[in-house]
């Protein structure tokens, strides 16, 4: 069981600029993989391409979710197949309450004609909200509308807890969070770790990985994974920056 990315090439549909250039990566169920990398290396593009964002075109490669290629699927089909994206910039949906939105998302996973049981739904929702220390009033507020950066990120994690994906991609979930919020969010993620589920945590800073401790750390540079190591690699990157990896690549090319 894994989320397997094979030789993935993707470009911006509007202007043809290639961003991902032969990316290989396998996230096994039960593992947490982290991706770090300098600005512009393709981290956010990777999460959007995996989600099926229409701004990007895949020109080569495969993405196998437990053996099934998801690249031809609509974003909603990928979601229902078990892929979740925690957005770096979650969208606001005015007038649609959080409770209704999550309910619709869960309803979409049920077979035709089957109705979500409201009592169970709210019981689960409140349980997860308590875990993330969210106020009950939150259910009636519009999705992300007027939320602070921290509230938005917490909401992403709540959605993940409710939808129980098989593979979750967290795109810079730590950005905009103070240390208390970071702890709460990490607690939510850690509560979901288990042998059935894989995580791909995209981050700029090592700090997040103190709380969500990864099994594997990758370095993304120029649209490819250039270096892979254990959790200590994150500390090394924090201390030394990315230049040494870039230098390694340059040497390899000139050799």
């Amino acid at each position: 069981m894994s989320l397997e990315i094979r030789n993935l090439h993707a470009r911006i549909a509007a202007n043809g600029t290639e961003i991902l250039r032969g990316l290989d990566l396998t996230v096994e169920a039960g593992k947490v993989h982290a991706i770090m990398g300098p600005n512009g290396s393709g981290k956010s593009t990777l999460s959007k391409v995996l989600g099926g964002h229409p701004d990007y075109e895949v020109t080569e490669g495969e993405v196998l979710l437990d053996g099934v290629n998801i690249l031809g699927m609509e974003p909603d089909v990928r979601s229902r197949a078990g892929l979740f994206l925690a957005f770096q910039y979650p969208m606001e949906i005015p007038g649609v309450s959080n409770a209704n939105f999550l309910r619709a998302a869960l309803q979409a996973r049920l077979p035709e004609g089957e109705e979500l049981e409201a009592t169970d739904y709210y019981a689960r929702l409140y349980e997860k909200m308590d875990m993330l220390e969210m106020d009950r009033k939150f259910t009636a507020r519009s999705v992300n509308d007027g939320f602070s950066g921290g509230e938005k990120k917490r909401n992403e994690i709540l959605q993940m807890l409710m939808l129980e994906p098989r593979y979750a991609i967290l795109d810079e979930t730590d950005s905009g969070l103070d240390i208390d919020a970071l702890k709460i969010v990490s607690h939510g993620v850690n509560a979901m770790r288990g042998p059935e589920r894989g995580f791909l945590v995209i981050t700029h800073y090592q700090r997040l990985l103190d709380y969500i401790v990864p099994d594997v750390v990758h370095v993304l540079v120029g649209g490819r994974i250039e270096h892979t190591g254990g959790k200590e690699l994150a500390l090394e990157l924090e201390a030394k920056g990315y230049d040494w990896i870039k230098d390694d690549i340059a040497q390899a090319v000139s050799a």
Partner: protein
Amino acid sequence: MSTELLEATDQAKQIDIDRTAGNFSYPEQHTFDAGTGLSHATVDYISDVKNEPDWIREFRHKALDVFFSKPMPTHWASHDLENIIFQNIRYYLANGQKPTRSWEEVPDDVKKTFERLGIPEQERKFLAGVEAQFDSEAVYSNMKKALGDQGVIFVGSTEGLKEHSEIFRKWFGKVIPTGDNKFSALNSAVFSGGSFIYVPPGVKVKHPLQAYFRINAENFGQFERTLIIADEGSEVMYMEGCTAPKFETATLHSAVVELVAMKGAKLQYVTVQNWSANVFNLVTKRAIAHEEAEVKWIDCNIGSRLTMKYPGVVLKGRKARGEVISIALASDGQHQDTGAKMIHAADETTSNIVSKSISVGTGRATYRGLVHIPKHLKGCKNNTECDALLINSTARTDTYPAITVRGTGNSSQHEASVSQISAEQIFYMQQRGLTEAQAMSLSVNGFVNDLVRQFPMEYSVELKRLIDLEMEGSVG
């Protein structure tokens, strides 16, 4: 008698898929038919058939002359109006002039029509009274007995003007004069059907009264005339729904609705308009609110080819209050030209206009608002909010507010916004497992949510269902 159902076959076009609920018709069998075209003879035919008093006959003839003399208002309105060929329309089609009080007595075909539209069921569930109009005349009209005992009158206009003429005549044509506009003149000449309601002083009608307007015949014009009088301190809510099958040719619906709220009365008028996309819907609606009275128009336009409708309130008594809550959904090929008029004519009157429109595909939504507060008045307030949502880049919205506030101590507040559902929002919702159509529906429902909450429960459910259907069609 054939009861065979003639399903409209033209469902290939996307826009028709959304209207299947009302898109069926039964073969016509009319005992009374004024024929095609419009002349003074048409007016006489209608007056003869209805066996009307002379004052109404004269009123009609004068109105027809006014109609002929007035030009089409295309200097400000849509040129699509020029596509109405008045001589190709049939102005009166009916099987009789007296509605039954029991569904059992309604002819089978007509009864089946309303059963398919769910009217008898709604009546049993939550309505205090129902009138069902089929083409030109009401076929069914009934009200809970308890209301009749309290002196409430709820009948068709035909019956109203004959049997309650002392009240009817006092107010008829007073809120909206014949010459108000070309279409109010047309209605005044050939009107038939519609409701007449009188609520005596202090009577509070708890459940809504409903009228349902159905066009069944092709090349037909429906011209109902509604007059509602809420006497001092009374309360009433009236709801109207309407549908028609999708014919190849254009159909005309041109109603006049006059409301009178006496001192301290509360009157609410709710419309959910879902005409098929070939109907020209040109309606004049206005209320007079006396001292401390409250009039609220809740107006929802989903169907029709072109709707032009600007419900108004003349705030005639001190501390009167007027409100227009309006939702318009313009899909491919539709133009919803709607808005509100608030005429302040007394001190301390307040008015509130909230309008939301959604334009999809090549749909066009226009808001026109008129707010008038003259110099000599004190303590008047108006609030106007109009928000437009565009679904595609081909959709269009226009806003024409005309607000005149003079004098000191009067105030008006106006807010307008245009927004678009972004590809990023849709992607976000799809990433959570909703299909594109579900994502669109959810956003649109979110946009109108605060207004829909003001609708009676059964109507807000219906409205949500209609929006879902429209969005499915638009995503295709």
